[in-house]
């Protein structure tokens, strides 16, 4: 219905124009989402994520989409699932305490293979914690929900990323029928800097695979079958789809409830995401050709991290490489291993006490002499401090 109306130009909303803009990360996120096809936004206010919600409330109805402020984060996330089942691309944004509340729905949407996008503008915890910046939810993103549930989590480091990775988040969620988390930080969401928008027709937009396009009739339709990423019928299309989060067979039936059925289900969910990690996950790297040490980071820490690496190379002559995890989950273990032959020290600066240090250490267990955590709580690392720590860590 919305699609038809849009084609009829009933709505006057216009996408962000190609060219240079000076924008806040939160606004870039919403503008990217609109281009990706956002139709439903449901949220609950929380500092420092409310700007995304406010911008969505203003922009979405211009395109005939619908925005709602729900009664809590649980219902906000639940609303996305219902919207996605009815065919809409849907998103919410929250911050860490609200992200905790959404874990129930994240687990549910993994099992029901529902495409949706959740933005977590991380702030320090535990509890109400503080309202500055943080990367303390990166483990919660993967392991906060109950059950063996793989999902996709991205880590933007700039306003440009807030735009591009939001579009990528929608594309990945539709392609893999999976919830996708944009694990951003207060620093990035509130950052104002240049955004360069390309010609709009060069931006790739992905939609979910439909049974209709595959010649599958309602009688033969298996909502959790056919392919590793099952085609998804929307509500209202006559496919009589039964969405189920209990152990289910390919047809969504729970009658043949069995250990075997459950294991097959979980095995496919894992194969779908973890088995395609090299297609899904991205890393960026610099200065790896000659490196004796490497600094691995993600999010806004990649900004100061890259500055520090350049400085120790140029000023102090240390052969330091740089890797940025664009994707946190599924963890790009193989890509990381292929990038590095052997190094002496791996430095991992994070705005937590050393969380991604664990999968990094596991991935590079036989490729380095030591892994050094560089923790910072509730604030950005300064490049000076990183340089100092690198000099100390490479001195011996």
């Amino acid at each position, binding site marked *: 219905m919305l699609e038809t109306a849009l084609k009829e130009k009933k709505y006057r909303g216009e996408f962000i124009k190609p060219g240079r803009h000076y924008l806040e990360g939160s606004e870039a996120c919403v503008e990217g989402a609109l281009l990706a096809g956002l139709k439903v936004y449901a949220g609950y206010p929380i500092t420092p994520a409310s700007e995304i919600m406010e911008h969505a409330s203003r922009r979405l109805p211009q395109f005939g989409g619908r925005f709602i402020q729900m009664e809590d984060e649980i219902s906000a996330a639940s609303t996305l*699932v*219902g919207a996605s089942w009815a065919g809409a691309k849907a998103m919410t944004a929250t911050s860490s305490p609200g992200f905790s509340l959404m874990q129930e729905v994240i687990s549910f949407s993994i099992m029901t293979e529902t495409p949706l996008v959740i933005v977590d503008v991380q702030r320090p915890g535990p509890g109400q914690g503080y309202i500055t910046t943080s990367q303390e939810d990166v483990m919660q993103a993967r392991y906060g929900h109950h059950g063996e549930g793989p999902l996709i989590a991205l880590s933007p480091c700039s306003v440009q990323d807030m735009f591009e990775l939001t579009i990528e988040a929608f594309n990945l969620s539709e392609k893999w029928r999976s919830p996708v988390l944009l694990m951003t930080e207060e620093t990035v969401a509130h950052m104002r800097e240049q955004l360069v928008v390309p010609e709009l027709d060069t931006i790739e937009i992905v939609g979910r695979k439909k049974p209709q396009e595959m010649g599958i009739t309602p009688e033969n339709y298996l909502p959790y079958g056919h392919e590793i990423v099952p085609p998804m019928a929307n509500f209202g299309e006559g496919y009589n789809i039964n969405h189920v989060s209990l152990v289910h067979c390919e047809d969504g039936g729970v009658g043949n409830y069995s250990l075997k059925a459950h294991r097959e289900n979980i095995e496919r969910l894992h194969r779908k995401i973890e088995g395609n990690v090299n297609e899904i996950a991205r890393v960026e790297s610099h200065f790896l050709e000659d490196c004796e040490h490497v600094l691995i980071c993600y999010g806004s820490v990649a900004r100061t991290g890259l500055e520090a690496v350049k400085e120790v190379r140029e000023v102090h002559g240390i052969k330091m490489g740089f890797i940025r995890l664009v994707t946190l989950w599924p963890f790009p273990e193989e890509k990381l291993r292929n990038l590095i032959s052997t190094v002496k020290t791996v430095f991992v600066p994070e705005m937590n006490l050393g969380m991604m240090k664990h999968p990094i250490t596991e991935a590079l267990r036989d490729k380095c002499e030591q892994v050094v955590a560089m923790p910072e709580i509730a604030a950005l690392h300064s490049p000076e401090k990183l340089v100092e720590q690198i000099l100390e860590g490479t001195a011996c």
Partner: protein
Amino acid sequence: MLKHPMLEYIKEEGPSGMRFPHILCPGCGAGQVLNYTLHAVDDLIKEGGAKKENFVFISGVGCSSRLTSHYLKFDSGWTLHGRSLPFATGALLANPDLKIIIFTGDGDAAAIGGNHFIHAFRRNMDVTILCVNNGLYGMTGGQVAPTTLPFANTPTTPYGNIEDPFDLCKLAEAAGASYISRWITAQPMQIIKAVKKGIANKGASFIEVLSQCPVHEHETPVESMNALKEITVPVKKAEGSGKIPVGELHYRPRPSWTERYESVIEKANEALS
């Protein structure tokens, strides 16, 4: 063999195997509520006013929520405990033409889902809610619910229930539901009519059906249903009776959330002209 007419809308089996027999206990009232609801939907489809593919059934978790699990030849979502209303809200935001029917229980709606319950009514979301109220948590073993009568002994109130119950219809009215009625499972024709009215109402319709749970009440289904007849009275004769009124309790149509949101879309677009 003569088949039940409502089997037209039921998946007795799917490509991956049998779905029947269903999970409900013998004598359970939830099956009656499904039967009456399907009759109402069947009437609406055959009268030509509604398309079958636009009906969506959504439920949470619990005995009555199982009605939506995998038995229906309709689009459906069997969702999180207490959260059927936010899921329905999302579906309506994406497609306001959907006709959403929610099966919920008293624990699902009024305990874990209490917050969503009142807010969906406040917004007058266009849903028809059938709350199968058996006054206890059936699926988990008969524990006390927010609707259990005082002094009742249950597995979690071995010394008697010290709490007072919610009146779900009064709660729904105070929160803003635009159509409200209450029945017992022994009133099929009234419930079919109520469901049709609820679906026709563009807004939040709340239909409470007091139901028997013979297993946890340790009675025969007939004894349980007779007990429901004993404690209830038609709304016109309710005053001074000390009994629970049944019948249509409230009908005040007002624009639904999605209808009102049209003005938001209009204003957002006017500002751009």
